[in-house]
């Protein structure tokens, strides 16, 4: 399934996308999140900025 990067418009393929899945745009490197899947198209939004208590 695919969708467009909201920043650079690159078409991005994701296998078995999940809502809230985090991906990186292969063109502009922006971190994106799968917001919703509409008519077999993925709608991406920009991922939130890294927060202080994130990660391992």
């Amino acid at each position, binding site marked *: 399934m695919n969708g467009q990067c909201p920043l650079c418009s690159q078409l991005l393929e994701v296998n*078995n996308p*999940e*809502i*809230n*899945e*985090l991906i990186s745009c292969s063109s502009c490197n922006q971190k994106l*999140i*799968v917001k919703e899947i509409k008519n077999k198209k993925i709608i991406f939004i920009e*991922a939130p900025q*890294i*927060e*202080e*208590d*994130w*990660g*391992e």
Partner: protein
Amino acid sequence: MKKYKIGLFYTLIRGDEKLLIDAAKKLNVDLELINIDNLILKRDAFKFNFDIALLRSVSSTKEKYVAFFLESLGIKTINSLKVIQNCDDKFFTSTILEKKGVNQPKFGLVFSLNEAKKLIENIGGYPVVIKPTTGSWGRMLAKINDEDALEAIFEHKQYLSSPYQKALYIQKFIEKDGRDIRAFVFDGEVICAIYRNSNHWITNTARGGIASNCEVNKELKKICYKASEAIGHGILAMDVFEGKDGYLINEVNHTMEFKNSEKPTGVSISSVIINYCLKKIK
């Protein structure tokens, strides 16, 4: 035979969570994805339909609240609140390890510049590393080579808004020869380990460190078991330095990221996590 269900609590579906979803499918295990940001943590409003909670929040604050709430309802969580709390704060972790005699770099915590200077002298002088007590991916770590740098970093920290930045966790810097070890530890048993290779002194794979397989030897197993026992077991990722007198535990993580480690080790860490959860239900 009853089919069990795992509730996977998440904030973002990273590559790690995708691997867990795939592993559950392969193992024919029911997995319910629960977005923490959609929850209302209130006893009479919370309905659940799973047998165990696997906590995979990117935010440690959210993870702690969810663990506390679920445990209050009698729900078993992986990891437990106790383990999360023991790992979440680096000073807590190091102090617990020290109490149990686990080898680690010398460390201490101070709140003022003068005491920082005394502490550094006490742990053998420069270089040292100043770390935030919480946080990860090697962010905001500072290697301090001399007193000038210490004074500069101390001043900068006074302008940061988080109160945690006012607590200075100071650790003796350990020369690493371009690599350290991350060991994946389940109830004290090391299932696999990677070297994190980097020319930079920060070796996190999230910061560009390259993962390669690390053979698990008896000494590594021994120190990881001891650290795991001190923390309270569970699923842990341990960062280990190869010191000149043996291994040193640097950090213990409670929500391991492993997506870069399955390939070099050949171990399906995601499957081990799913099976671990099933074992803990029974």
